[in-house]
């Protein structure tokens, strides 16, 4: 019935056997896989590698936006200046304070919150959703809000501290060089707890409950169960989140720029905000790039040492 047209069509679909030469077939065999991955490679080179190389190259050039005669290659001059720059070293110190001060509280409070949320209670789902809220607020809004909260004219916090006897009289800690760093740190703790709470909660929920039952029967108290089951199970998550957050917080200048702008008297200047100041306030892109390069090396060294430590730990135990 339909025999002949079908045969014709089938014949029409066939192409003549390829007559390409052996050499071109060999080349296409080699190139073919690269062709398939090329979109990803091109994307990575265009948006990651090129800017990185370009940025690093700025560190060795004199690039000031407002100086039309700048742009020349100056070798290691920026790095020599950096070694004499006391503001930079102060910023480095502040970065450590800012990073580990925030991280310690974010982690420990986040862990406590995760443990609390892992218990069964009425309205648990709702509370879990609410806990995530600070993470969803734009950081510059959080920063402004916290700045206002610390302001004795509009905010309640200084008055509460005075009432509790922590302060003699209401004043703005953001304008006290000794205390100013605690402002952004408190805001950062509030902002960062949900991240730890949610990731640790997910890890907690993946621990099989019969392990706790086995431990209870083996004679472990709640505290012993925490140390011999919960912590070992959380360890990989803790390691990876601590490392990620350390790098993020070290680079995270939003709250500081919004709340104190590095002041008073550079007392809250961290390396990231110092780079921001150098690049966009003083428009010295060359010097800013040199600082960024140093920060990059420091963070890389940190990440590598954490990974090495973790590898050593998992091998030894």
């Amino acid at each position, binding site marked *: 019935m339909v025999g002949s047209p079908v045969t014709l069509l089938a014949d029409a679909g066939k192409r003549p056997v390829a007559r390409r030469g052996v050499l071109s077939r060999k080349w296409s065999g080699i190139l073919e896989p690269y062709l398939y991955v090329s979109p990803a490679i091109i994307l990575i080179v265009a948006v990651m590698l090129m800017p990185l190389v370009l940025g690093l190259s700025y560190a060795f050039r004199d690039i000031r936006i407002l100086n039309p005669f700048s742009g020349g290659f100056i070798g290691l001059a920026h790095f020599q200046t950096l070694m004499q720059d006391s503001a930079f070293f102060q910023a480095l110190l502040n970065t450590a304070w800012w990073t580990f001060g925030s991280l310690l509280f974010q982690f420990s409070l986040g862990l406590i919150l995760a443990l609390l949320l892992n218990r069964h209670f009425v309205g648990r789902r709702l509370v879990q959703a609410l806990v995530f809220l600070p993470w969803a607020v734009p950081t510059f809004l959080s920063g402004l809000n916290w700045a206002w909260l610390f302001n004795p004219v509009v905010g309640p916090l200084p008055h509460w501290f005075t009432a509790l006897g922590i302060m003699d009289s209401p004043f703005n800690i953001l304008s006290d060089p000794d205390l100013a760093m605690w402002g952004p740190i408190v805001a950062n703790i509030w902002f960062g707890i949900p991240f730890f709470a949610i990731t640790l909660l997910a890890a907690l929920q993946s621990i*099989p409950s*019969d392990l706790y*039952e*086995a431990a*209870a029967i*083996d004679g*472990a108290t709640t505290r012993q169960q925490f140390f011999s089951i919960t912590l070992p199970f959380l360890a990989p998550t803790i390691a990876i989140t601590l490392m990620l957050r350390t790098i993020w917080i070290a680079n995270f200048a939003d709250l500081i720029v919004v709340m104190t702008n590095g002041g008073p008297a550079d007392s809250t200047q961290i390396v990231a905000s110092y780079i921001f100041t150098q690049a966009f306030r003083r428009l010295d892109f060359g010097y800013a790039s040199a600082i960024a390069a140093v920060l990059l090396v420091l963070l890389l060294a940190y990440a590598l040492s954490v990974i090495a430590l973790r590898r050593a730990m998992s091998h030894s135990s």
Partner: protein
Amino acid sequence: MASIEIANARKSYGAVHVLHGIDLAIADGEFIVLVGPSGCGKSTLLRMIAGLEDITSGDIRIGDDIVNDLQPRDRDIAMVFQSYALYPHMTVAQNMSYALTLRKTAKERIAESLAGVSEILGLNALLDRRPKALSGGQRQRVAMGRAIVRKPRAFLFDEPLSNLDARLREQMRTEIRKLHRRLNATSVYVTHDQIEAMTMADRIVAMHDGIIQQVGTPIEIYDHPANIFVASFIGSPAMNFLHGTCIKTDTTSAIRFADGHILPVAPRPGLYAGQEITLGARPEHVAIAAPETPGALPARVDLIEPMGLSTLIHVTLAGHELKIFTMDRPAFAIDSTIHIAFDIDKTHIFDRNSELRLPPVIKAPEETTKETSGANGT
């Protein structure tokens, strides 16, 4: 080691009643198997003994202590879980010695116990491995070792073999049994597998819907099931059931099936004419008979299952599907008609309404005691 006594123990989750008043006395050193279909409450009962579930009402006593309000760690019992629940970040040795470490047992004592137990279970070569690097059977052994090392007052097993393949399960069954003989430890073993129950138990506790149906030795339960549930649950291939009506003269009783066939049954008290009854016959108590045999009934062959040692013949009789167990190797054609005869002395009669077995008139005196002790479970 200690005895366990459960008195009128109940468990409810809100309005859902899981256990309805459990009474059970487990002697010191006894191996008790709780058996029943899933959802019958056997695991809940075990977890209540372990202290992992609260007791809604009633008492559980281990040794001389009422343990209702004691934490699991204060009950001095050991449990083997279905999932084994080995600590994945600890080695085999750490897993087994964890309980002793928590009790601050001296290191030499721990090493001593560990060496002894790993010798018994053949775990010597595996002590430094993590559970991840063990096979299912090895993990099972470690879970056992973790329980044994502590020398607890009682062992609780929650379907410990159900994650193993058939051959390994058979092997572990014998090993657990031998181990029990060696340690003489009070053990409560939960399973849904009636073969495990039959082969391992000193006494079987058959449970259904949160109620103990029958307590007895495996043979008591097999030969004198208290009701239709126990009769159908214990035994593989399962017992055949034929529904019919009782007809009765002064001296004889018989069951009449829906298709009019009549089968005489042994007289027993409580049987009255017109009663709806169920005849229960184990496959090995139904035989292929010559057509002229008195009491032989015609049946249609549906399927023949050769099992090597024996053969299982599926037939249809009076609208009921029946299985016949034979050591012969018959060559019947499918759909052909054969005649079958029941071993009347070994068949059971159940009341259709109460589902209880109607025990026959006592003939042999040695049957008396077993009969009464076995059938009182409900």
